[in-house]
């Protein structure tokens, strides 16, 4: 009962996704008529649609029914809560929540708990009282990019961050992870860390202003890929594509295409389809009575032109790549 508030990035009771099979064995067979409900943040971002594809793909394999719903827009906190409550009242067997904020799905979580419906918090915002969490380490997104800078730009320089919506957990963590890591050696200076509101246009405008003030900038880190693609355009418009690198987060297909085209330097892919599959797997394991650790962490990888092709595969092929990576 008395769970400590969850911090998905630091929680000690955790397991790598790749170790599930090994530690808990086969996924128990789901009972006839099992229904799992997914509540997403928004479907206007490819990331969340891919997550849903993962749910669906795994559910299809396991022969369970899945319903995947999303709020009408990002930031529609109460709308999302209504959706979650309505799913509960319809008697779903397990629920996968990707909440808008750390708190907005709390009542749904409680009412599910009181009806013994397992709930998994999948990614992004973290409900402190969540008993189960599947997702990647948000801080790690930024840290990986920072690592790239430290390795590939040893001479240091000026960098800038385009942040997501103010006050959103993922945005804050990614920014903090990047900023802290990159400035550790003292060679890099974060000259600007400005809001892009998850919006391509806002990111473009912010990036062009930053560039104009700092034409000697080395690179940008954007909190998601949509914004990163806007930043790429701003960099091109300033004629600095050879000097300024741009990194995004999420690994949406457009980001891959842009990396291939040599425009976007890289993105931290957190493999949403796989994350969805893992989340569904975890749900079925919970339904089967297995006692999973509180956090199941899912993979992520920094994708650049060098390794883009090896990650640009789907389904089981991707699993293999990632399992191999995890084994190293």
């Amino acid at each position: 009962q008395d769970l400590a508030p969850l911090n998905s990035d630091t929680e000690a009771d955790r397991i790598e996704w790749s170790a599930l099979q090994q530690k808990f064995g086969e996924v128990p067979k789901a009972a006839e008529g099992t229904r799992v409900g997914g509540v997403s943040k928004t479907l206007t971002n490819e990331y969340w649609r891919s997550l849903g594809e993962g749910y669906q793909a795994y559910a299809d394999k396991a022969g369970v029914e899945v319903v995947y719903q999303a709020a009408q827009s990002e930031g529609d906190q109460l709308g999302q809560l209504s959706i979650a409550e309505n799913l509960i009242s319809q008697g779903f067997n397990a629920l996968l929540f990707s909440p808008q904020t750390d708190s907005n799905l709390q009542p749904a979580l409680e009412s599910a708990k009181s009806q013994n419906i397992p709930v998994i918090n999948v990614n992004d915002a973290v409900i402190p009282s969540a008993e189960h969490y599947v997702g990647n380490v948000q801080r790690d997104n930024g840290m990986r990019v920072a690592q790239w800078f430290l390795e590939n730009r040893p001479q240091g320089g000026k960098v800038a961050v385009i942040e997501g919506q103010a006050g959103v957990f993922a945005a804050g963590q990614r920014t903090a992870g990047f900023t802290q890591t990159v400035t550790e050696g003292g060679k890099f200076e974060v000259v600007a860390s400005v809001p892009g509101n998850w919006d391509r246009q806002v990111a473009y405008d912010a990036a062009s202003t930053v560039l104009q003030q700092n034409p000697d900038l080395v690179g940008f880190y954007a909190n998601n890929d949509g914004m990163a693609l806007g930043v790429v355009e701003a960099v091109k418009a300033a004629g600095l594509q050879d000097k300024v690198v741009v990194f995004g987060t999420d690994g949406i297909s457009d980001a891959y295409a842009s990396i291939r085209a040599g425009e976007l330097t890289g993105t931290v892919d957190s493999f949403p389809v796989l994350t969805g599959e893992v989340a569904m797997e975890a749900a079925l394991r919970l339904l089967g009575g297995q006692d999973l650790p509180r956090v199941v962490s899912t993979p992520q990888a920094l994708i650049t032109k060098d390794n883009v092709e090896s990650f640009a595969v789907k389904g089981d092929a991707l699993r293999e790549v990632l399992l191999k990576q995890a084994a190293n």
Partner: protein
Amino acid sequence: MSSTDSLATPRPARRGFKLGFGLRDAGTLIGLVAIVVVFAALSPNFLTERNLLNILQQSSINACVALGMTLVIIAGGIDLSVGPTAAIAAVAAAAMMVGGAPILLAIPAALLFGMACGAVNGILVAYGGLQPFIVTLGTLSLYRASALIYTGGNPIFGIPPEFRALFNGAILGIPTPVVIVAVLALLVWIVLNKTPLGEYFLAVGGNEEASHIAGVPVAMTKIASYVISGGLAAIAGLILVGRLGAADPTLGNLWELDAIAAAAIGGASLMGGKGSVIGTLLGAIILGTLRNGLTLLNVQAFYQLLATGLIILVAMLIDRATRGRG
């Protein structure tokens, strides 16, 4: 073109006035009934007692905010800052309670914060002579920023269980928020229909210059509308804190649009001077029903958006057709 003009209304409108339920509200009700019938036909789960209570509960926060919005709109204004106002109140109450202050101190404090936010809006509008839209657009940013800065962007957890019980329990099987909002609606109805202030709201929104000359305290009337709106937003914030068990500084995002939509569906005119408490409640319930029904039918998000837009338009057209022009 004008044979069923506004002129047709005098008698019914008058009777309606006494019952507090006018022809216009009947139109809104018909819109709601139409929506309910459609959903009931499509989803067996829809017309269960539990689901209906669910709808009321889900509509209660919007209804609470929309009540205040209705008064502001009637008095000729608009309040875009309700969401951040609620956030400030919620954060203030939560911080106090977490800091050990008793609930009975935190609640009035939150109310005061909400009313103070409203007062700032009202003063800028009434004495600064600025347009309500632009004033509250400005304070929308201002209040939100204040909440974010104070909390550092993090939600405040650790709300005492007694507080949550107060705002998130049930009375005789009816969720507390529904009861609270019903009581508030009654109060607002009384203010609007039975007190001098209500007369003033309607008069100032109807003809500000004439009201001024007739000795209506125009500035105070406007300010009062914003203060009440701020207070009700604060209560909505507290209800939400009760439900969520946390006070998030981003709480209340987009509330203004829902509240304005509820008031407008309920017959409030954004030109001022017109609006109804019952209409607004029905408007909020229509919006809540829509969400609930579409989720029950498992409509995909994009199509939910499509349906929401369509249904609002169709409901308004039905309403319009039933009550004639006015």
